[in-house]
């Protein structure tokens, strides 16, 4: 008891230790239950998130280099080839809840390592493809499934490691996407020139395997198997007599809990998700249409491509800057998110107008503004989740959010393409994308307690059974009592999260 009290006091005193101290004292590990909030371990996880974003989204974005090679080898239409990345992205997004559910049930470490292995396996098998459906199954489904097991658990892990600097950590972690698209473009071209698409896919599979060490960096927790329902403690199966039916029901109940399906009835969460879905719909449109629009407006290929590159650079800077700004705590995260998304919408709408007015400088300026704001909002989107659903349900919420927002990402570009075909110019499609952002910002303002200076009261956990089960479920992430309070919330939230995330 005394020893435990000593540990308790030691933990309480523990604010961010210096990295050296963490290793120096062996006893620090036991006291390290809080994992040195905002400390060295957290930044290691940020590094892992950086590598994972590179190898997941950076890779997906640069797969376009393979497009020409596939068209030539398989002699198929462009549409058939573009299904490969569509299936991959769709699988990654739709299976996100699966990733977070597995994270709740098992170890985040195992899940991410398994995901990295799957993604890499998909690419390696794809290098042997003799037909197009083979590519759909390997590069599309298998790698997509692997990616879904990697991304949201990694994001959740990083978020659980930070409180004060959460948004900055996410921002820095996500810069991997932008940086890698600069690096991968020439790298992929070099690989294609030297090894053809088969060899390049094989090497990419090897590169993707680097996700596994990133996953290994996640601290494993005590849970190795999903907890068995305790006899008499829960409402699940009362005694062994229930047999198959009640075992099935308890399985369903566990699935329901791991997937956090209760969130589907949670008003603020749905509002938030709706807003993010609109953002997603408009987000990719400029990337797809801006260069073509620039060419149509009469700028040369190089000038149009330069606007895109400048946008990409501004995106990287925006992620870090917005993360840092948000964590200063001057304004609420939702307010800042509304600000960034509103600005993004404005810039997108202004961009085609600038090129119509004939000014390249203005187009470049608006493009930079768009890039900065679009990057900024990506740092904040995930960081805003705990404020709405609480740390206990954060992991599942991330998965559900990713899956639901993918609807926007799937519908947005084709819709804007349709607009372009109808009107013959890209101006309408870009303006529509900007309006998606503005509409989403408006939806954000309908969140409860939006106009209050401090945050909303901490969200309540769902009533009734499974308090302990929730505790086990949330613990699957870290096994650490992340204090989990978001900016400015009261002690009630801390109590709640302490029972949830450990």
């Amino acid at each position: 008891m005394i020893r435990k009290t000593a540990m308790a006091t030691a933990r309480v005193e523990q604010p961010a230790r210096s990295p050296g101290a963490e290793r120096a004292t062996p006893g620090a590990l036991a006291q390290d239950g809080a994992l040195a909030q905002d400390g060295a371990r957290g930044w290691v996880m940020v590094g892992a998130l950086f590598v994972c974003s590179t190898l997941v989204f950076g890779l997906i974005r640069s797969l376009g280099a393979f497009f020409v090679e596939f068209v030539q080898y398989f002699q198929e239409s462009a549409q058939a080839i573009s299904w490969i990345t569509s299936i991959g992205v769709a699988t990654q997004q739709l299976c996100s809840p699966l990733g977070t559910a597995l994270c709740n049930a098992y170890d985040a470490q195992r899940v991410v390592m398994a995901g990295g292995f799957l993604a890499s396996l998909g690419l390696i098998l794809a290098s042997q493809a003799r037909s197009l459906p083979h590519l759909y199954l390997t590069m599309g489904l298998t790698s997509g499934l692997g990616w879904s097991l990697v991304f949201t658990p990694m994001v959740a892990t990083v978020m659980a490691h930070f409180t004060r600097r959460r948004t900055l950590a996410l921002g820095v972690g996500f810069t991997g996407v932008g940086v890698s698209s600069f690096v991968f473009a020439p790298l992929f071209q070099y690989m294609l020139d030297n090894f053809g698409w088969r060899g390049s896919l094989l090497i990419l599979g090897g590169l993707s395997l680097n996700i596994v060490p990133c996953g290994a960096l996640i601290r494993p927790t005590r849970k190795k198997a999903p907890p068995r329902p305790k006899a008499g403690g829960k409402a699940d199966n009362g005694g062994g007599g229930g047999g198959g039916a009640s075992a099935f029901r308890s399985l369903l109940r566990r699935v329901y809990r791991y997937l956090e399906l209760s969130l589907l009835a949670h008003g603020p969460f749905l509002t938030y998700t709706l807003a993010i879905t609109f953002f997603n719909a408009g987000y990719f449109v400029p990337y797809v249409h801006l260069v073509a629009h620039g060419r149509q407006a009469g700028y040369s290929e190089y000038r149009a491509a330069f606007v895109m590159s400048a946008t990409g650079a501004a995106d990287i800077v925006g992620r870090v800057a917005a993360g840092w700004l948000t964590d200063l705590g001057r304004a609420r995260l939702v307010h800042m998110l509304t600000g960034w998304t509103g600005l993004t919408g404005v810039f997108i709408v202004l961009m085609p107008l600038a090129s119509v007015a004939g000014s390249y400088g203005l187009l470049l300026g608006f493009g930079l503004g768009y890039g900065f704001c679009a990057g900024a909002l990506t740092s904040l989107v995930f960081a805003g989740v705990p404020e709405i659903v609480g740390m206990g349900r954060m992991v599942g919420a991330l998965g559900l959010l990713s899956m639901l927002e993918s609807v926007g990402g799937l519908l947005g570009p084709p819709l804007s393409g349709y607009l372009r075909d109808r009107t013959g110019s890209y101006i309408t499609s870009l303006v529509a994308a900007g309006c998606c952002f503005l509409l989403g910002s408006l939806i954000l303002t309908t969140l409860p307690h939006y106009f209050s200076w401090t945050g909303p009261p901490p969200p309540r956990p769902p009533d009734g059974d499974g308090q302990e089960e929730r505790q086990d479920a949330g613990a699957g992430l870290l096994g650490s009592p992340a204090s989990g309070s978001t900016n400015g919330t009261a002690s009630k939230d801390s109590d709640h999260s302490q029972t949830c995330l450990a």
Partner: protein
Amino acid sequence: MLHSGVKLCARLLLLSLSWGGTHSTGGPGSTLPPVVSGPPLSSDVRSVVFKGESQVEEVQVVRPLTLALECTWTGSQDRPHNISGFWRKDGSELADSRRPVLLENQQYNLRRAFSITDEEGLGNYSCVFDNQAEVDFILAAPRVGEVRDKPIVSYVGDSVVLQCKMEDTKPQPNSWTWYRANGTDKELLDPEPDSPRYQIHNQEGKTKLTVRNLTEADSGAYYCGAVYDISVTLSRVDLRVITFLEPLKPFLVIVGEVLVLVSLILLYERTKAHGPQPDNTLSDDQAHKLTPDDAGGEVTDSSTRQRKV
């Protein structure tokens, strides 16, 4: 295009000029052949008006024809009434093409008809004014525009499709042929219809050569020839066949690196977890939650216990 009647008049006119005895009939593309020989050629006119010192004009020639080239020059600062002009082909002056050119309406005018019958007739024709200004007419059959400058990489045992496509904006060839570079020669590829290794598939404006069961000896340069009446234009496609060992080397290096990293990280976690001795003892009621080799178990378990206290 001239009407046939006008064409005949023009021919008669030029014929009468040639009988004037000032031109010899030697050299490529000098005068019209005598009326009696060959089928009637189609004819076309290309004229250029220019100001500066030189200009280049590309002319696509698809079939044998009579081509009249006309240059009109606005002259330099001082416009002498009388300058000399001549025609050049491929850099060398055409014999008996030099003549005095008079200033009319502030312009100098040179015009000449050339008979392009075969590949020899193609080339670079220039009209030269007084050694000061010239227009280059580049007569050539259409070439395939999009040429892939990097070799296509493929693997032993795999198959590859080499293709050439003539743009829609250019005249389409009558047919296609394929050649394979053999030293300095080009060897014609003419496979049987059911040959297992090579297959040529021609479509309107597109041709595809499929090579199956590749071996490393298949590497090299391949040429697709667009066949026109006047000539065959070649376009080069390079093929490089490699074995799977080549990408396998970097792949294995990366896999090795990953394995080393993972082992290091897991070993590190394991030693750190087994480090702290004082907290190893746990009560029985908590032990059932742990599995023996669980590295992080004592950490979280102690924290759980602590909270419940």
